[in-house]
C-alpha cells in the first residue's frame, strides 16, 4: 500500500484534528466539547451531506445505476450482521454477539464523510446517490440483530421484543430521518436550493468536519482505557472485520461494475461501524448486552482505524483494481 497515500490521508486537517482530540485525553488535558455542541456538529454534517447528495441526485437523476447501488447497499447491510453474528458467537453470549453484530452491520456517517473529503483531496468524486445508499444501510442491521436475538436467545416472558418500537428505532432514528429528509429536500429544491444553502452547508463543510473530528478524538480517547477490558479477540475483530467487509464489498461492486469513486465509498460504508444509532437501539432492546463492549469497539478501535489506516487502504485496493 502506497506510503504516500497513508501520509496524504494523515496530513489532512480533519485527521490531524482527530489525533489532537485523542492526544488531549491521553495527556489528560481538561479539553472538552460539552453537549449539545457535538449534537450541533453531527446534525450539521448530516444535513450538509444529505442536502448535497440530494442536489447531486437532482442533477444526475435516478438511473439504473442508482437502483443497482441501492440494492447492493441493502444486500450488504443484511449480510454483514449475519456473518458477523456467527463469528462473534465463537466467543460471546447471544446478547453481546447480537449487539456487536448490529453495530458492525450498520454504518458511520462521519467515516463516510471523512472518506469523501479524502477522495476530494485526490481530485476524485462519488455519486450523490451514495448518500441514499448510506441512509439505507443504517437500519437493516438493527432489525437483523433483533431477529437473531429472537431466534437464538431464550428470554423470560416479560422481555419480549417490542417490534413496533424496534422498527421505529431502526427506520425513524434521528440520523436516518435527517439524512433522508434533507436528501429529498436537496433533490426537490435542486440548483436553486443548493445555491442558497451552499455558503453554510457547502463551503464550511471541511472546517466543520475538522472541528467535529476533534470532538470524535476526545470521545474515542475517553473510551481507549476500556480497550483492555474488551479482550484480544474483540480488538482483532474490530480491525479485521472492517478489512474483511471492505474486501468482500469491493469484490461485489467490481463484479457489478460500479464506478471507482462509488466503489471506494461503498467499501468504506461496509467497513464502518455505527456508534450512535445502533448503540441507542441496542441499549433499549438488548439491555443484557454490555455497552462498554460495543461502544468501545466501534468508537475506540474501528473508527480510529478506519480514519487513519482503513480509508487509504481501501482506496489503495480500489485504485489497484479500477486503475
Amino acid at each position, binding site marked *: 500500500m502506497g506510503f504516500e497515500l497513508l501520509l496524504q490521508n494523515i496530513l489532512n486537517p480533519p485527521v490531524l484534528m482527530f489525533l489532537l482530540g485523542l492526544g488531549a485525553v491521553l495527556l489528560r488535558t481538561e479539553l472538552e466539547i460539552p453537549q449539545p455542541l457535538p449534537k450541533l456538529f*453531527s446534525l450539521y454534517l448530516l444535513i450538509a451531506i444529505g442536502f448535497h447528495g440530494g442536489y447531486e441526485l437532482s442533477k444526475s437523476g435516478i438511473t439504473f445505476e442508482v437502483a443497482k447501488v441501492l440494492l447492493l447497499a441493502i444486500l450488504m447491510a443484511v449480510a454483514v450482521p449475519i456473518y458477523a453474528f456467527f463469528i462473534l458467537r465463537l466467543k460471546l453470549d447471544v446478547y453481546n454477539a447480537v449487539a456487536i453484530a448490529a453495530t458492525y452491520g450498520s454504518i458511520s456517517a462521519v467515516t463516510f464523510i471523512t472518506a469523501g473529503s479524502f477522495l476530494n483531496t485526490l481530485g476524485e468524486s462519488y455519486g450523490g446517490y451514495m448518500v441514499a445508499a448510506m441512509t439505507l444501510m443504517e437500519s437493516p442491521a438493527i432489525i437483523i440483530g433483533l431477529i437473531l436475538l429472537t431466534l437464538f436467545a431464550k428470554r423470560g416472558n416479560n422481555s419480549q421484543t417490542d417490534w413496533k418500537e424496534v422498527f421505529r428505532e431502526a427506520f425513524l432514528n434521528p440520523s436516518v430521518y435527517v439524512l433522508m429528509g434533507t436528501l429529498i429536500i436537496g433533490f426537490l429544491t435542486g440548483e436553486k436550493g443548493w445555491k442558497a444553502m451552499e455558503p453554510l452547508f457547502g463551503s464550511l463543510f471541511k472546517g466543520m468536519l475538522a472541528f467535529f473530528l476533534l470532538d470524535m478524538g476526545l*470521545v474515542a480517547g*475517553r473510551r481507549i482505557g476500556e480497550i483492555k477490558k474488551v479482550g484480544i479477540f474483540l480488538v482483532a475483530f474490530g480491525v479485521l472485520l472492517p478489512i474483511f467487509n471492505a474486501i468482500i464489498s469491493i469484490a461485489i461492486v467490481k463484479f457489478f461494475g460500479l464506478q471507482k469513486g462509488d466503489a471506494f465509498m461503498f467499501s468504506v460504508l461496509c467497513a464502518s461501524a455505527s456508534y*450512535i444509532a445502533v*448503540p*441507542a437501539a441496542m*441499549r*433499549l432492546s438488548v439491555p443484557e448486552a454490555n455497552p*462498554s463492549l460495543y*461502544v468501545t469497539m466501534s468508537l475506540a478501535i474501528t473508527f480510529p482505524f478506519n480514519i487513519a489506516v482503513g480509508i487509504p487502504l481501501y482506496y489503495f485496493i480500489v485504485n489497484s483494481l479500477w486503475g
Partner: protein
Amino acid sequence: MEAMKKVEIVVDSVFLNRVLEILGRAGVSGYTVIKDALGKGERGIMAGDELTDVFKNSYIFTVCTEETVNKIVQELRPLLKKAGGVCLVSDVLWLTH
C-alpha cells in the same frame, strides 16, 4: 403541611420514559425530572459526556402517599433488575397550598 413519601429514582436515561409511565400508572399527582445526571454503580461509570448519550442517567422524584409507593416499587423492581438504577424512599412534609 402533610406527611408524605418522597420516591427518588436514578435510571439510565434511555429508560426515563418507562419510569414515567410506571409513575403514571401508579397514580402519582406529579413528578420532577432532572434529565442529565452522571453516576457510578454496579454497571460502571456513567460519565455522560459521550457523543452517544449512552452512559447517562436521569434523576426523577415524586411525592406521594405510602400506598402509591408500594405500587411504584412493585412495577419498578423488574425494570431496575434488568436495566440497573436506584430507587430511594424517604419521609417529607408537603406544603399544601
